[in-house]
């Protein structure tokens, strides 16, 4: 069965901390791994990763894919309260996207 597993399911840290969110997957016909941020209702696209070992960065967020380990991490450095959200990992396999359950991140001021 195809699946995407995220950990932890929830995380509470203080502003300024660095966090690492994990995603592992088991799918057939892997094409790419995706990260989305869901603040209120609508998830918004963060990253697409297709090649192992190449880091993608956007400001304080970065992500990397390990195709040997079938996993990815999303790092957020110097967290701010505005980073509080659900972070969704997803995998495109064939022509379908399967989502993980998400990590709910809460940043305390």
């Amino acid at each position: 069965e195809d699946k995407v597993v995220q950990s932890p399911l929830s995380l509470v840290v203080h502003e300024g901390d660095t966090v690492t969110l994990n995603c592992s997957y088991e799918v057939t016909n892997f094409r790419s791994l995706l990260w989305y941020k869901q603040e209120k209702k609508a998830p918004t696209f963060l990253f697409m990763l297709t090649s192992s070992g190449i880091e993608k960065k956007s400001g304080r967020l970065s992500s990397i894919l390990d195709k040997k380990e079938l996993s990815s991490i999303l790092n957020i450095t110097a967290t701010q309260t505005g980073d509080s959200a659900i972070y969704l990992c997803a995998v495109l396999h064939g022509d379908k996207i399967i989502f993980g359950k998400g990590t709910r991140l809460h940043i305390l001021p």
Partner: protein
Amino acid sequence: DVKVTQSSRYLVKRTGEKVFLECVQDMDHENMFWYRQDPGLGLRLIYFSYDVKMKEKGDIPEGYSVSREKKERFSLILESASTNQTSMYLCASSYRDSYEKLFFGSGTQLSVL
């Protein structure tokens, strides 16, 4: 900016009612999707469409149908709503060759009593 608009933010319906959830996108996207999101279960794909008048079943199509008569509009239909269809429904769209990058609507929270 891409805009994906869902007609209602909140809906309350009775068991057995026929329910229509509407989604409109303004970026000429070929692909459109309906997901539901439940606590502890994440986003699950109900139906998707790659073109006008075509539809494909997702992972949980039972109890739902869809309609795509125009490129910009994708409707989700609950023929006879049941309490286990209480959920957050999210519509998304993307370009044909870029369907990793989904643009989501703000969601419709449906409660079936």
